[in-house]
């Protein structure tokens, strides 16, 4: 199982519209639309949980899908979002996200 962690880029504006999330990249005004499943991953990506933990917690129970298959898709999605600069790859867990402010 992967332990990769991802965090939402601060350089984007995002808003949930129904089941989807719209994201606009500030540097180049590019628009992205995330579907229902991608939106769950995006919202949970705060740098504190590993991707496999997000998949097991949010995706598998909701969609009745095997964890390994869901994780493969989630990794592809996360890396695509990294390539577009709207998710950031984290080497270490982001502790701040776990601690209440």
């Amino acid at each position, binding site marked *: 199982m992967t332990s990769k962690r991802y965090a939402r880029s601060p*350089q984007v*504006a995002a*808003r949930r*519209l*129904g089941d*989807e999330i*719209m994201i*606009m990249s*500030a*540097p180049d005004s590019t628009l992205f639309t995330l579907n229902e499943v991608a939106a769950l991953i995006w919202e949970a990506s705060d740098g504190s949980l590993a991707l496999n933990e997000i998949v097991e917690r949010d995706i598998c129970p909701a969609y009745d899908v095997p964890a390994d298959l869901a994780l493969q898709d989630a990794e592809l999605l996360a890396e695509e979002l990294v390539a577009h600069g709207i998710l950031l790859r984290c080497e270490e867990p982001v502790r701040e996200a776990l601690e209440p402010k």
Partner: protein
Amino acid sequence: MIAGTCLAASGTTPRNKPQGVIVEIGGIPILLRSGDAKFRAMLEQRYAGFLNPSAQPASEFTVYLNPPRTKMPDEDAQVFRNDSVWHIERGDFRAEWDTEAGRGYVRQSANPYAIDTVLRITHSLVLAGKSGFLLHAASAVRDGRAFLFAGASGAGKTTIARLAPEDAKVLTDEVSYVRRQKDGYFAFGTPFAGELAKVGENMRAPIAALYLLAKGPRNRIEPVARSEAARALLSNILFFAEDPEFVEWVFQSACEFVGLVPVYRLTFSPNARVWEMIG
């Protein structure tokens, strides 16, 4: 300090500022000063219906006239910010606007297009902070409600405005002025005209619907899902700056707008019967 630059360059003093005209669009008055009486007269003619000499200006620009260029540039304006000062530049003009001081300057030739662009950009920047935006759209008021018709060049904005029945007041055939107020989104008339070459009615009304224009053999109206509506809206918003804060404001305004205002795709053939479906 841009004010210092202006004053030094023009030889004027704060006690001897050039006269100006106050152009009020969307409830936001902007004072345009110029020492050139013919240029002021041109402004008064171009923005007739939107002049408000008694308004307290929200901002002011002093216009310095340069010799005309032989060729008008057609490139987009560059808009960027250093602290509180916005820089707006195109081949035919250069402007700075200090949002904290509430004033700026424009260096341009005596053509109306440069000052028109500066006004559009200034209003788009002001509106962004007020949950509003300028939109590539015709708009008209019917029975006290505003209807917006958005689309790129050639989509039919001027056509739909030209076909408007007598009881409809056309706010613009080119650039719609959208502003969030406490009781919803309102459209305001603008002097920013397209092919119709006619200044819009200076009035405001709550927005009842946004139509995304498409040409087709039959008139048809279809609802548009919110995410598609937001994408279409964002693609038609006049978006001059790449400043992250500005982008965030405009993006959030567009998403909020499509949550409050119904959005439809209006496919139409160019005849007046299309207006039987509006309102």
